[in-house]
């Protein structure tokens, strides 16, 4: 078939398709039923024009038409979640349990390191100054002064709301960065987890020595259940990426990374939601001046809740 004949036969169809695409992209769906057959015809025309090498210009024009039709016709839904409730009750705990080895390893690393550093700092009180500047140490001391401010100073609703915003902005951003930097062979994630463990161990040890154990632990125990667990879960998601690049197994690195990214997405999303909950507890509950026993009891209940939730929720569904 010659180009002139081909164009004479197809022009009306191509122009009609272009008009239809423009209408559909503007959201008018009146003639939508026309799209699939016209699109198939355009694909056929494109294949023919290319096979016969009719004209570069015509092939380019038909290619654009077919691409636009393809975008409208095929819209994949990749891993959409069904709603936050169903996600938290099922998909998220299941995703966490599917990475149980990483979850246990990172918890062991984090708490082992924090405890080890704490003991070391107990023996060598000056160790903390190698990692944290003296000004910051004094600030932390003042914050958890037993006679002090963390629970003492009168706080109004405004301060609580500010802190709520701050914890979301700060902590969720840290979780996302911990996750994403795992792509660098897991190094970014490990650095983040180790840094947080060092800080926790040193500060806790120092405060216990200074006699601030009660204000410190009664403050952190409540939101710690959600916050520490969520940061470690963002580490799990990050390590999943890093391990896929380091040890892709029987797949290519890109294929392994892609699978790991999809499977780690529910974990990082759930970790972010846990951090929002933690921000609420840390801003509105932890600073309340209440008997330490009550705070320890509520804190212990929250830890139990997190463990039971992540350990058992979402088991009933077969998948």
């Amino acid at each position, binding site marked *: 078939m010659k180009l002139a004949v081909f164009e004479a036969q197809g022009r009306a169809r191509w122009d009609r398709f272009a008009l239809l695409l423009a209408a559909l992209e503007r959201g008018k769906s009146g003639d939508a039923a026309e799209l699939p057959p016209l699109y198939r015809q355009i694909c056929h025309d494109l294949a023919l024009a290319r096979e016969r090498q009719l*004209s570069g210009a015509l092939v380019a024009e038909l290619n654009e038409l077919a691409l636009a039709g393809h975008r409208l016709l095929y819209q994949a839904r*990749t891993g959409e979640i069904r709603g936050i409730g169903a996600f938290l009750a099922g998909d998220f705990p299941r995703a966490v349990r599917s990475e149980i080895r990483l979850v246990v390893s990172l918890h062991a690393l984090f708490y082992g390191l924090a405890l080890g550093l704490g003991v070391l700092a107990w023996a060598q009180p000056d160790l903390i100054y190698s990692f944290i500047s003296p000004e910051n140490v004094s600030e932390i001391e003042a914050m958890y002064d037993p006679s002090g401010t963390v629970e003492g100073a009168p706080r109004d609703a*405004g301060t609580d*709301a*500010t802190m709520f915003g701050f914890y979301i902005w700060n902590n969720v951003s840290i979780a996302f960065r911990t996750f994403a930097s795992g792509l660098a062979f897991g190094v970014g994630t490990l650095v983040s987890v180790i840094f947080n463990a060092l800080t926790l161990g040193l500060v806790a040890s120092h405060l216990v020595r200074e006699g601030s154990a009660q204000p410190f632990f009664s403050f952190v125990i409540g939101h710690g259940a959600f916050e520490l667990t969520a940061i470690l879960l963002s580490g799990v998601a990050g390590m999943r990426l890093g391990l896929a690049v380091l040890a892709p197994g029987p797949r290519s690195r890109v294929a392994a*990374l892609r699978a790991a990214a999809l499977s780690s997405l529910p974990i990082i999303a759930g970790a972010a939601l846990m951090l929002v909950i933690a921000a609420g507890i840390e801003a509105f509950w932890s600073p309340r001046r209440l008997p330490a026993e009550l705070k320890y009891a509520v804190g212990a209940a929250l830890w139990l809740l997190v463990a039971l939730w992540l350990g058992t929720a979402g088991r009933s569904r077969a998948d």
Partner: protein
Amino acid sequence: MRAFTYDPGRMLDTIHAVQTPEGVDLALRVAGPVPRALAWGVDTILQGGLAIGLQIVVGALAGVGLGLYLIGLFALIWFYPVLFEVRAHGQTPGKRLMGLRVLQENGTPVGWSASVLRNFLLVADFLPLLYLAGLVAMISDRSFRRLGDLAAGTLVVYADAPRARVTPIPDVTPLAPPFPLTLEEQAAVVAYAERAASLSAERAAELAAIPRALAGDQDPRACLIAQAAYLVGRTA
């Protein structure tokens, strides 16, 4: 055998081929580092502007306002690109300005998961400094994918059709070539006739002089155009 494929060894063009269920290869024109960096710059400036605007609006309220501002800032940094890519045909304002669009690798619109992944992993592309990892990944990949694109299975392509550099073959008396041409030779003659008007006169003459056997002792340029008119099926 297919007469036309996007064989990476043969084609220099930055084309990513997508095979559709209809059995035809669609050509996506992938965008390189420079327009994408410019789009990123535009988006960053816009995000900064929005952050300032947000501060003016909610900053007046003290405690609660500051909390809202921080949450807004958080959303602006992490979810601005995601929201635009999923809701506005794969285009953030910066990409729209630069004529770019994010698509899944199979040419379909980008979804929530893929958009979240590619935008969060921008952090990894930034490492070790100033998007070096992303740049290295892009220039070593045929389809200019940065790490986030590789993990999410996405592409950044030019949204608009290429500017037409062709003009219809002029209305001349068709002339049959002196001997039968192969399909590729026919395509070359037609392509020449379509592009001759956009070339300088010297370059057009130079190119037309190459297939000497076609023109004989006539003006090579006019002769090739007349033969192209014949090849596309025009009649006198």
